[in-house]
Each structure stands twice: as C-alpha cells, then as structure tokens.
C-alpha cells in the first residue's frame, strides 16, 4: 500500500475495431503519488488518451479488454472493476477533465445546475447553492455564471466550469486530458495557473496529458514520454528535458525548440507517427530512428535506470544496463 493515488503496473490493453484488434497500451507502468503533478507526453497514436480512459474504466466493455497488468487506485485493485464499481470511483478519488469543454457540457442545462449535479452526487450532505458559489470562486468565475448556458461562455470559462464540476468531488487526483489544446495561449496560461493553484489549495495530484511539451514542462514535476502504446522514457521533468535519452524524446524536444542544424534546416523526426494499433516486434520507434540497430527490431528494450536521484529511466538499446553507452556530459 504505497501512497500512490494511481498506479498502473505492466498494463496491456486492447480493443477491437472494424474486426481488427488494436493494442493501445503495451506493458505500461506509471504512478502518481499523492499531491504530485505528473505529465504524460505523446502524439496521435501514442495511446495517451486511451490511458486516461482506462484509468477510469471509461472504455466500452464489449470492445475493450485489459489483457494483462494491474490498475491500482488509492491502494485498491481496480483491474477487474465492474461498471458500478467504477461509477463509485469516478469523481472521488479520481476526477477527469477533457479537451473540448463544449462537448462535455450539456448544452440545454445551465452551468450552475451541472455543477450542482456533481455536488449532489458526491457530497449530498452539503447545501448545494453555497457550495456552487464556493466552487465558482475556486475556479475564479463570477457567481453570475451559474445561470448561464455553456454556449454563452467563452472557451476558457467553459473549461473552468468543467474544472469546477471535477473538483466538486474533492478528488485526490485530477486527470486532465489535453485541457488547454482548444484554448488560446493567453487563456491557456490562465488555466495552467488555475490548475497550479487548485492543486495547492486542495492538495490534489494531477496527471496532465498533452502533446504540448511546453505546458507539461511548466506544470509537472515528473514526466512520462509515450510512443505507440509504450512508455519509452520517464523521470523528473528537469532530467528528461535537460538530458533526454531516448531518440524520440530528443526529437520531440528539438521540434519543440525549433532547433536548426548547420544548414539552417529544422531538426525533425523523419516519417509519420504510428497508426493506431500497429504492433511491431521490438521497439516501435525503430523505423524512424537515426540510431536504429539490429536489436531494435528484435526485442523491446528493457527499462534502464540512468540516474537514481531523478528516477530518469529509458527503454532504448542505446542505453544498456551493463554500462555500454552510458550518459555523456
């Protein structure tokens, strides 16, 4: 019984679509301890959004299966939870907000009512109206917003409403799946600031999922880098950003920094991101990797701890536990 709110151990998850079985997550291990902010970075096809949904049992049972591994929520084994069990889990201890607030809010219900729904469900002993006001204040929305409909609010305000609904349950962990992607950069900065403040005031952990390295760098203490359903590098944010070990992580950072080479061309990762469910043998990044070796297409490399203090770990044949290819200054 660790202090981890969320712990995924060697989780392998697949679903069937159009007659094909797609392995969206492959032996994924991840944890979020109480109060900490963890980032999950990946592009399309990486499986990061699937991970968010699997962690809360939001996948349709007939088409989706956990093939192996374990999900632990607040110390309890949630791997084989039924829909009812999940239902009790959602909101508290784990809540979730998604990317596009307009899709997740009922367009014909006033915003205050939607927040009230959450309150009534999780904390029925509380008086609703004062709690709604309290929540709106927490997310820095004027109290009059309670009587507005979602379409009357701006994108940033809607996202705040979603946050209010999420924190109404006093969650220990908030999973935010691309919470600012649909927002302008100035609104994004406000929402990130709000998230930091909420975390502080409510002592809430956060799993921030995004393709935007910048916001993950700003908001998270630790990060995981995902590619094609597998986690390829993880550790403290500073360690991974300052000394990236996996060629994919390096490529992402070059792209995010718009680094150029000596000819003035942008440093890029060749090829395309993997389609969903392409399950190669060995490392899925091998096809696009400048450093691919024969081992890369034969077997998925094991996790190698590079630095004890930061927990910086990588799964790449360039780094072997026997020391061949160790870190270079």
């Amino acid at each position, binding site marked *: 019984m660790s202090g981890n709110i969320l712990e995924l151990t060697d989780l392998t998850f697949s679903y069937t679509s159009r007659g094909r079985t797609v392995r969206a997550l492959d032996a994924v291990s991840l944890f979020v301890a109480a109060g900490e902010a963890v980032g999950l970075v990946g592009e399309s096809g990486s499986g990061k959004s699937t991970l968010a949904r699997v962690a809360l049992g939001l996948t349709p049972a007939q088409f989706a299966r956990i093939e192996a591994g374990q999900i632990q929520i607040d110390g309890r084994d949630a791997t084989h939870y039924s829909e009812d069990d999940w239902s009790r889990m959602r909101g508290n201890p784990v809540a979730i907000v998604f990317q596009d607030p307009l899709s997740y809010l009922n367009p014909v219900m006033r915003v205050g009512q939607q927040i009230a729904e959450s309150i009534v469900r999780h904390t029925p002993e509380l008086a609703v109206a004062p709690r709604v006001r309290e929540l709106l204040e927490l997310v820095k929305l004027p109290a009059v917003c309670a009587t507005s409909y979602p379409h009357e609010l701006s994108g940033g305000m809607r996202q705040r409403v979603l946050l209010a609904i999420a924190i109404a349950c006093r969650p220990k962990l908030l999973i935010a799946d691309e919470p600012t992607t649909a927002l*302008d950069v100035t609104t994004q900065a406000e929402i990130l600031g709000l998230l930091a403040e909420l975390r502080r005031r409510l002592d809430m952990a956060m799993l921030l999922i995004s393709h935007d390295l910048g916001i993950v760098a700003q908001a998270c203490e630790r990060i995981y880098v995902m590619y094609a359903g597998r986690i390829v590098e993880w550790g403290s944010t500073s360690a991974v950003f300052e000394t990236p070990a996996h060629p994919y992580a*390096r490529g992402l950072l070059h792209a995010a920094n718009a*680094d*150029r080479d000596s000819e003035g*061309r942008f440093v*890029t990762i060749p090829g395309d991101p993997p389609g969903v469910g392409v399950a190669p043998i060995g490392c899925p990044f091998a096809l696009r990797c400048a*450093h691919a070796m024969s081992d890369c297409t034969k077997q998925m490399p094991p996790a190698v701890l*590079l630095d004890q203090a930061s927990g910086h770990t990588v799964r790449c044949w360039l780094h072997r536990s026997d020391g061949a290819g160790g870190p270079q200054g």
Partner: protein
Amino acid sequence: MTPALLDIVDVSKTFRRTRTEVVQAVRSVSLTISAGETVALIGESGSGKSTLGRMALGLLKPDSGRVLVEGRSLYDLSGADLRSARVAMQPVFQDATAALNPRRTAREHLLQALAVRGAATEDQAAALLESVGLQPGSEYLNRFPHELSGGQRQRLTVARALAPQPRLIIADEPLSGADVSIRGQILNLLLDIKRERGIAYLLITHDISVARAFSDRVAIMRRGEIVEMGPARLVLTQPEHEYTRHLLAAVPALPATRSSIARPGHRCAPGLAR
C-alpha cells in the same frame, strides 16, 4: 518603382451576427508584402487574422479598403485579369483533409491546378509530388486523399499550391493540425520552397514559435487591428505593445536541453547548432 506583391490598404470587414449584433472582424488594417518576404500574422482566436487572410486571397470582399495584387485592385478585376491576379497567390490551409476533394486523386488535383498555366502533363504532376517529398511521384498520383497520411495530405496541398507558380503563398495555420514530430518536416518543406523559388509567404498563425522560426517580419493582430508590426527578431524579443508582451509572456518556456545522452562516438544530430 515596382509595386509591392500584396498591398492591403485600410481594409475593414463587419459581420452581422444577429439583427442587432455586429462583429467588426477587421478594422482598417493595412499590410504590405514584398516579393520574397515572409510575414507572419500572429493573433489569437477572434483577432480577425483568418478573415484578413480570406480577404487577401480574394475570397471575401472587404466592406471598405482595397487589396492590391502587384498594383491591381483585386476586387475590381474580372475575367482573365482576375484569374491571373488570383493565380499569383495560392492558399495552404490548416485542415489538409478538408482542403482536398475527397473524390479526386492526387493526379486530378494537380492537373487541375497546373491547367491554370496552360498545358498540364502527368510528368509535371509527378515532378511536383517529388518536389514536396512524396517520392516516387508516379506512385502517389493515383492515391485518393483518404489513402494518404496526414503529413502526406499536407504535402499534397503544398504541391497544389505550387502548381500555378504563385508568387505568394498564404498559409493559414499550416502546422496546427500536424503532430509535433512532423511539424518540422513541413516547416523544412516551406523553407526549401522559400529558398529555391523565392516565393513570399503570409503565414497566419497563433503559434509564436512557428512565427519566430520562419518569418522576416511579424504583425500582431488583436480584435481586428494590427497592434504592432516590425522585423521578427525585434518584435519578438523587444516587444513595444503591451498586448505583444502579454502574448509572449504566456508562452510556456521549455527548460534548455543541455546535452543529449548518446553512445560514445555518436552525435545526436549532424552539426546541431542553435
């Protein structure tokens, strides 16, 4: 004195939302682009940058002001004159899927665009595909848009834009739909085109890093007006207007990558320089 390539003079556009509500999307905006220049138009949603882009492309008539293409007023032309003015500017859109006709093959798209300049041959189409990195060109000719990956679709739209040999490409958020790992590829493509063909760009974007990486001049747009304009390096490092400063401050900063861990003897990228 040769006229500027694109001269937007005091252009305004108002939209009627309801019977009583109007939205002033663009308010008296002036902007000039010279041959071979890259100008980035930076703004957030609601700034009017896309509306301005459409007016520049001849797709939306301004309520007042003029759009001059090589000295000629775009919205006063007709017939062959209009066609030749139109052809000088070509668009690249954000959503590559919506920018391609789902029922036409790559070949048909390119032949249609090439026909504007006269004869259009399959060899020319194949060559165009190869110039945007789709090799071998002949293999891609028969593909439909849904048979291409996202990055390939965007390359096809760039190839189509190049076909009529434009002097200016107006790109509206060309990288926003793309994954981080292929953004660099598309940027390189646009860069190569700029270097090899001397085409000017009007790059409309909300992403400051893209603008910083790619433009000679930038114009910052807010609620229909240009609040600051000048050389890219200057505006983005020493902004004068408060909004620009606010915008730049909101961009999350990445911790600097000190070095990349690599095997002994390996270099992480050929001649990496900042």
